[in-house]
């Protein structure tokens, strides 16, 4: 027993190599930090355009797209050379974006002109714009690729957009300042976080109505300090992680009961998050403390916090193991 415990302890101490690469956009320092998960160190800092926020890998894993809001465009970082190689067009002040399952079409929320820009990723050309609510932000595509979700921060709505016709087919009113939207992998539920409302609305994507809400309560913290933003859903759809902004906590939510089971302490103003491809770890960006916290998903424990640039905002993981 003791030997087994000792052995498992030693195994824990010598963490196995996993070698994934994470890219973190630093909104204030106008850089992207590259983190090697094998050792949890920042291996490179890439200079990008003004105010980088939304960040995501292309499906083929060759490029990292980063929305540089104050330059009104999306920059492409070559994952091999780790340098900015091209620019995609967008509307003014792009913030968050999402792509379809095939990785052919990119949908960009332009915060300042109430539109979603549609971009052909192969041709790197703008296909058109979709008019949405005021201050569009949260973006996600349904697992079947037929519906695009956009949340507008000021209109307090989740817009359901038909990707074929590019028309809004339904609007669902949620709590104040919806920031982020995330489907369950089985498409049975859409989760929308409301920063000011302090809740996550569970939407039935078929009926287009709110069927439940996740609420948060942390002893000793004011209600206003709890501002849900990023959401991470495990592949089995059983557990969701919700970043709670200035509450400096990530809530672990049981998706069956929609109840919080645990709060994990991370850095200040936790914003967005990304799983490693093997889903062993979840990385969160902590804007005010300028770092990234690493959560052991199975143990539901924060194991490490890594300093990055100023005001880290978004994060994306390379789909495969580092070369």
């Amino acid at each position, binding site marked *: 027993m003791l030997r087994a415990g000792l052995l498992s302890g030693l195994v824990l101490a010598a963490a196995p190599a996993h070698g994934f690469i994470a890219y973190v956009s630093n909104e204030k320092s106008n850089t992207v930090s590259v983190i090697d998960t094998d050792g949890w160190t920042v291996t490179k800092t890439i200079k990008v355009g003004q105010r980088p926020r939304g960040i995501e890998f292309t499906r083929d894993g060759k490029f990292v797209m980063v929305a540089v809001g104050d330059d009104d465009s999306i920059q492409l970082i070559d994952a091999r050379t780790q340098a900015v190689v091209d620019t995609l067009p967008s509307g003014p002040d792009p913030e968050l974006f999402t792509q379809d399952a095939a990785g052919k079409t990119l949908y960009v929320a332009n915060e300042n002109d109430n539109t979603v820009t549609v971009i052909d990723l192969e041709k790197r050309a703008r296909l058109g714009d979709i008019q949405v609510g005021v201050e569009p932000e949260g973006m996600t595509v349904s697992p079947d690729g037929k519906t695009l979700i956009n949340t507008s921060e000021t209109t307090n709505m989740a817009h359901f957009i038909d990707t074929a016709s590019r028309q809004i087919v339904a609007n669902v009113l949620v709590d104040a300042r919806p920031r982020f939207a995330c489907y369950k992998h089985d498409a049975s539920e859409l989760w929308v976080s409301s920063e000011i409302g302090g809740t996550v609305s569970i939407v039935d994507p078929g009926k287009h109505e709110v069927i439940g809400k996740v609420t948060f309560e942390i002893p*000793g913290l004011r209600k206003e300090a709890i501002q849900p933003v990023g959401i991470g859903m495990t592949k089995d759809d059983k557990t969701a992680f919700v970043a709670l902004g200035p509450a400096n906590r990530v809530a672990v939510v049981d998706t069956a009961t929609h109840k919080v089971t645990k709060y994990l302490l991370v850095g200040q103003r936790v914003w967005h998050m990304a799983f490693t491809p093997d889903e062993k770890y979840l990385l969160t960006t902590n804007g005010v403390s300028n770092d990234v916290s690493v959560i052991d998903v199975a143990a539901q*424990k924060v*194991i490490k916090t890594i300093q990055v640039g100023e005001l880290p905002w978004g994060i994306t993981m390379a789909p495969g193991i580092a070369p």
Partner: protein
Amino acid sequence: MSSITTREAPRGFSLQEYMTCLTGIVWREGLRFLHQRERFVSALVRPLVWLFIFAAGFRQVLGISIIPPYETYILYEVFIAPGLMAMIQLFNGMQSSLSMVYDREMGNMRTLLVSPLPRGFLLFCKLLAGTAVSLLQVYAFLIIAWFWDITPPPIGYLTVLPALILSGLMLGSLGMLISSGIKQLENFAGVMNFVIFPMFFASSALYPLWRVREGSPYLYYICQANPFTHAVELIRFALYGQINWISLAVVGACTIVFMTAAIFAYDPSRGLARRGPAGGEG
């Protein structure tokens, strides 16, 4: 009394005899502890009150910073756990010193000291026995703390053991040194006021030293000079599988100094006897 003062320096005992003596003393101390259930409960309640009540109230006070050996942000409860472990040992050390005074008053000490084995060894056995008792208390505390989400890495429960033994010996020998100067049980309250409280509060047990420094640089220097701070830090690092070398050196050196001084103080030809017998011992 004469048996104590006129006894010749013993020589040539076998290892087995030493071991018999050691197990005898440790066993007696262990039995005594187990039979005093109130003592066990109170030894646990004290740190748990700090953990459940004090720490809950202070949750937001510390703010957020990452200090070694921690690799991420921690809750205040997690921070004070090593301090409370050391507190258990500090109280236990003082409790042992109290029992030395009691033994002396009741005459039990005579039974112990008439043993032909070297006095230094006898006192060391007594220290080891006290430390063993403190280990029981600390591990019981760690088990309860685990349910309170204070979950150091599994290996930490093992690596903390040598640190606990060393800090237990240091605090025990400090207690023994103090007990040599206390003639009556009633004076023990003084020990609380002049030793336990200043040592505990002027240390890194409750607040990180950088925070103390912000408040008062002088207090910071006092905390740094406090051996209890180093016992806390030694335990804190060991609990996470790391060694704080400075704390190790300080605790090691203090243990040697306190133990030597305690053995010296209990030497009949110098310490105890010169001051004259006290209570039931006389």
